């Protein structure tokens, strides 16, 4: 079997579900003939036809609002928002309707849909193409927010998202769209939502991250290993709802925790993780929790983006600080 990239794993999952569930409809801006600006829907329109894979006019609120209607009718809309930075016109439909229809109608109507969006730094594109504002969405009751960090998890988690009975925001880290290759069997087997993944076992510190930042996090863990510091690495994967139990279990073992995310610090998902650890595992902590995050700045244009992005060095600093605490 040949190895595929994260973006190819997304295509593979979409194709699998299109082939196996006739209610699945894929749409968005440029997803048809062009196969998406990142080629995530490459070949799908050709294979499944213009009934199943559709280009829409350019309007994000329209895309999500229409998806609400389709979902309520029992279809499985899988919408692409071209970049996370362009999801904002659709927030009204996401927050006011997609997340609420089930609750509002006491379960009579619901919104099983997936909104996919590439997100994060790293592609030298203009402003708004580097956003990681996942915590805005994680804050909204009724939504699931899922972020894959490898081809395997992209395939398995996207399948799970498409089979979930509720709306799922599926954020795809552009920085690692083509960085890692893995063998991903096209067997239709989903991975569990709402669960963390343990990427590395260790005893000294728990490093918690998701998406593209796991690249820097794993590098930091390897560096720390050489210095005799043994890190456990957790991929949160579903940032809402949060699998805090798995994180607590790890922190009970290591007694130390560093949370790493690309998004700005204030009210980031790291704050929620830290708060829950403080509520539920304070006595297991041997040092204060540290967060290594993007600064509370607008993501700079690409020349200065590296200053914004948490570096391996910043993760190492935080880890050393946590280890040195007595």
């Amino acid at each position: 079997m040949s190895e595929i990239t994260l973006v190819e794993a997304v295509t593979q999952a979409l194709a699998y579900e299109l082939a196996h569930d006739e209610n699945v409809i894929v749409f968005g801006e440029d997803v048809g003939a062009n196969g998406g600006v990142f080629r995530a829907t490459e070949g799908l329109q050709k294979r499944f036809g213009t009934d199943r894979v559709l280009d829409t006019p350019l309007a994000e609120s329209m895309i999500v609002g229409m998806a609400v209607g389709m979902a309520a009718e029992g279809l499985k809309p899988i919408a692409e928002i071209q970049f996370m930075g362009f999801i904002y016109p659709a927030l009204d439909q996401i927050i006011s309707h997609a997340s609420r229809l089930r609750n509002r109608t006491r379960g009579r109507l619901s919104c099983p849909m997936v909104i996919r969006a590439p997100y994060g730094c790293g592609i030298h594109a203009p402003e708004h193409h580097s956003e990681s504002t996942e915590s805005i969405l994680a804050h909204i009751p009724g939504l699931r927010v899922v972020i894959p960090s490898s081809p395997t998890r992209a395939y398995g988690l996207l399948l799970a998202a498409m089979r979930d009975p509720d709306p799922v925001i599926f954020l795809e880290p552009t920085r690692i769209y083509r960085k890692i290759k893995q063998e991903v069997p096209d067997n239709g087997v989903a991975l569990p939502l709402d669960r963390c993944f343990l990427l590395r076992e260790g005893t000294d510190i728990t490093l918690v991250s998701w998406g593209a930042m796991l690249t820097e996090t794993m590098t930091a863990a390897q560096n720390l290993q050489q210095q005799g510091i043994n890190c456990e690495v957790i991929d949160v994967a579903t940032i809402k709802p949060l699998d805090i139990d798995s994180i607590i279990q790890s922190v009970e073992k290591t007694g130390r925790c560093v949370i790493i995310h690309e998004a700005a610090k204030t009210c980031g998902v790291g704050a929620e993780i830290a708060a829950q650890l403080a509520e539920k595992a304070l006595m297991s902590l041997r040092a204060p929790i540290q967060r290594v995050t993007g600064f509370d700045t607008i993501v700079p244009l690409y020349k200065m983006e590296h200053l914004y992005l948490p570096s391996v060095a910043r993760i190492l600093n935080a880890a050393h600080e946590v280890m040195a605490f007595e």
Partner: protein
Amino acid sequence: MSIQSQTVAEFAITYSRFLDAEGHPTQDLPESLKNADTLRKLYEYMVLNRTFDAKAVALQRTGKMGTYPSSAGQEAIGVGVGAAMQEGDVSVPYYRDHGAHLIRGGSIEEIYLLWGGDERGNDYATLKQDFPVAVPIASQSLHAVGVAKAIQYRKQSRAVVTFIGDGGTSEGDFYEAINLAGVWKLPVLFVINNNFWAISVPLSEQTICKTLAQKGIAAGVSGEQVDGNDVLAVTYATEQALKRIREGHGPHIIEALTYRMCDHTTADDAKRYQPPEEVESYKKEDPILRLRNYLVSQNLWDEEQEKTLYARVKQTVEQAVHAYESIPDQPPTAIFDYLYATLPHDLIEQRDILLANLGAHHE
């Protein structure tokens, strides 16, 4: 059964141009376009637009620029509209009207800086009142009506010009903007660059409207189509529209028909979706060629002038590239320093962390 009804309103959209694809006049030119210097200036700025733009694409290909949106084939729109604007008017652009920026006195270096990933490109040295390029499609249309409201409130005779693509006219923001502009009779001109594509989505999948100008009708806003590859048509329509706007007659829409003779941006591959026959058929519509043919036929332009112009433009662009490449980096703290008028305390702390980390790096 047939019921009785009567027509209560009727609408029409006109289309105009002065030069056909070969540069033959299709009608008499208005007085304002008979001036040889005016015509030559339009030509020169279109050539400058195409040249600096091709250089930006070349810089991107060699890793010296980020993703860049070319305006190849569409120069007549930015240049023509910009030429008809006055000092003090406000441009609220998107990313394909660089020609307007240049002919209004903006610099090439600013454009290079912005697309080279440097925020200073938006800190215009001369066009202090203009908005920066809006990347979120159609969001700028609403800013334009706000600017127009401010101008109206102060009873000034300035005008606002905002640009948008054909795809952009599908966004709610665009409809909201033209509606408000109509209701409040605001001094704003909406220029639609209809290049028939929104990345890979053809106009036919964007709307079934026969024209985009007619979108104004539902908002009570007048609109017209012009040949967007005829810089004279664009310039004249803009002059007339701005005159009416300044006289207090309210907003207007100009839909300029053109074609995207380039990839959507350097990150795109238009060969995946633009039919080659279609691209080929628009080559003969080229706005630069068309005006040159006309100028030559009127004995207003010759080989010598052409050579001199290209040499001068080449030098201008080279100087801009040099300025762009030799500008010192922004200080790292710049990512904090423009967020607020005064940096709040929590960000002072974060800025210190950034500096401390850089220090550690440099050791």
